[in-house]
C-alpha cells in the first residue's frame, strides 16, 4: 500500500512536471468559458447563454476530447517504462505488479481528476460571477454532475489505455491501438447503432436498444448530461433515445464506474502474466 502511494505520487509529479496537468486544466477551462460566452453566437448574439445550452454543447465536445486526452496521457504507461528499462528495474524492487500498475493508474487518474475539477470548476465559477445566471442552484447541480461524469469517463479511458499498454510490446503500437479505440467508441459505435436502427426500420426492441447505449461509456456520459435538462433533449441526437428510457442517474453513474473497473481489472490480470 505504501509503495502504491509512492508510485502514484511520482506519476502525479511527472504530470505536473511535463505540464500535463496545466495543459488539460487550461483546455477544459477555456473550452467551458468559450462555449458559455460564444455558445449563442450562431443565433447572432454574444454573451453568456443559458446554463442548459452551455452544458449541452460542453458535453458534446467533451465527449470527443476527454477520451482522447485520457488515452494520450496513459497509453505508454507500462509499455513506455518497459522500453526504457525501468519496468524491469521496478519489478526487482520489493513490490508486486498489482501495486505498480494500481499506483500508476491512481497517479494518472489524479492528474485527469484534478485537471477536470479545476478546469471546469473555475470556468463554472467565472460563468456564475460574470454571467446573469438566474438559478445558481441549477448551475451548481448541472456542473457537479458534469464534472463527476467527465472524471469517470476520463478514468474509463485511462483504464482502456492501461489495457492497451500492458498488451503490446511497442509504444508505437500502443499509440495506434489507442487511436482505434477512441475512434470506435466515440464515432463508430454510434454510427453502427444508428445504422441498425434505420436498417431494421426501428424493429429493434426499444428496451434492448437502451441497454446497447450502456455498452459505450461515451454514450452513458452523453445521457447523464443531456437528461439533466428536459429542454436539451431536442439537441441530444442519438442519446435522446437513451434519455427517453429514463435510466436512473444512479444506474448511469454505476455503469460508468463499471467501465472504469472492468478495463483496469483486465489490465491487472494481463500485466500479471506479462513476460519481461
Amino acid at each position, binding site marked *: 500500500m505504501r509503495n502504491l502511494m509512492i508510485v502514484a505520487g*511520482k506519476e502525479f509529479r*511527472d504530470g505536473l512536471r511535463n505540464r500535463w496537468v496545466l495543459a488539460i486544466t487550461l483546455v477544459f477551462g477555456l473550452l467551458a468559458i468559450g462555449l458559455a460566452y460564444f455558445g449563442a453566437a450562431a443565433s447572432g448574439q454574444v454573451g453568456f447563454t443559458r446554463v442548459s445550452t452551455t452544458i449541452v454543447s460542453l458535453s458534446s465536445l467533451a465527449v470527443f476530447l476527454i477520451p482522447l486526452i485520457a488515452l494520450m496521457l496513459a497509453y505508454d504507461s507500462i509499455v513506455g517504462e518497459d522500453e526504457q528499462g525501468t519496468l524491469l*528495474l521496478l519489478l526487482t524492487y520489493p513490490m508486486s505488479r498489482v501495486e505498480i500498475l494500481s499506483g500508476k493508474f491512481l497517479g494518472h487518474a489524479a492528474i485527469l481528476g484534478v485537471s477536470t475539477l479545476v478546469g471546469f470548476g473555475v470556468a463554472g465559477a467565472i460563468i456564475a460571477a460574470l454571467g446573469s445566471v438566474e438559478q445558481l442552484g441549477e448551475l451548481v447541480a448541472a456542473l457537479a454532475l458534469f464534472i463527476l461524469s467527465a472524471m469517470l469517463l476520463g478514468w474509463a479511458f485511462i483504464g482502456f489505455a492501461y489495457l492497451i499498454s500492458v498488451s503490446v510490446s511497442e509504444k508505437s503500437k500502443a499509440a495506434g491501438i489507442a487511436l482505434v479505440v477512441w475512434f470506435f467508441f466515440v464515432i463508430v459505435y454510434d454510427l453502427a447503432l444508428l445504422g441498425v436502427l434505420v436498417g431494421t426500420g426501428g424493429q429493434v426492441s426499444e428496451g434492448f436498444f437502451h441497454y446497447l447505449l450502456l455498452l459505450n461509456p461515451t454514450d452513458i456520459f452523453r445521457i447523464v448530461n443531456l437528461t439533466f435538462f428536459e429542454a436539451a433533449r431536442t439537441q441530444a441526437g442519438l442519446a435522446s433515445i437513451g434519455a427517453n428510457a429514463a435510466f436512473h442517474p444512479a444506474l448511469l453513474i454505476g455503469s460508468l464506474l463499471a467501465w472504469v473497473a472492468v478495463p483496469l481489472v483486465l489490465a491487472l490480470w494481463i500485466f500479471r502474466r506479462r513476460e*519481461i
Partner: protein
Amino acid sequence: MNQPVIEMNSVGKRFGKLTALDEVSLTLGEGEVLGMMGHNGAGKSTSMKLILGLIRPTSGELKVFGHDPGGTAANDLRLRLGYLPENVQFYEQLSGFEVLDYFARLKRIGSGVVKPLLERVGLGHAMHRRVKTYSKGMRQRLGLAQALIGEPRLMLLDEPTVGLDRAGTRQDGGTARADGRPRDRRSGPGAADPGVALRSLRRDNS
C-alpha cells in the same frame, strides 16, 4: 554458518523452442566477485533475471540466500539486492536526486542516503539537474548509485561499464571495493566487457 549467496544447480531456461540456459551450475559465496563473459545471447542477462526472480527456471534448482528468488520470500530477498539493468533510461523529467529518492523510498529507505550516494558516484554537482541533460556516462553512474541503494548484500550489474570513461571505471571498481572489502560481504556476478571484468576480478583476488 557460511551459506552460499547464490546456488545454481543444473539450471535450464527455455523460451518456447529456444534454450537460453542449459544445465548451468555455480555457487557464489559472500564477498566473491564473479564476472560473466560471453557472446551476445549467451544467457548472461537471462541468468540475472533468474537470480532476481523475474523469471522462473524451467529445470534445475536455484537458491538465493537459501530461498527461491521467485517464491514467497521474494520481497524480503529484494531488499538485499541491487540490480543495474543494461541500457536503462531513467525518468528524463526528474532530476538525478528525485530519481534516486524515488527508488530509495520504494526500497523503504529514507531520503538521507540519496545525497551521499550521488556524491559517491561523482554526480554530486549535477544532482538537481534533470536526467535529460545527463551524458551517457552520467546516466550509467546514476544507475550504479541506484544499485547501491540500501547497502545490498548482492549486486547484479549488467554491463556496468558501458559509457563510463577510464576514470569512471576505476572509480566504479573503487566504489565496489570500498564498500565490499571492510564488510567483506558484497558479492555479485556482472556481465561485463571482458577486459574490465578481468581487471576487476584480478583486483579482487590480489
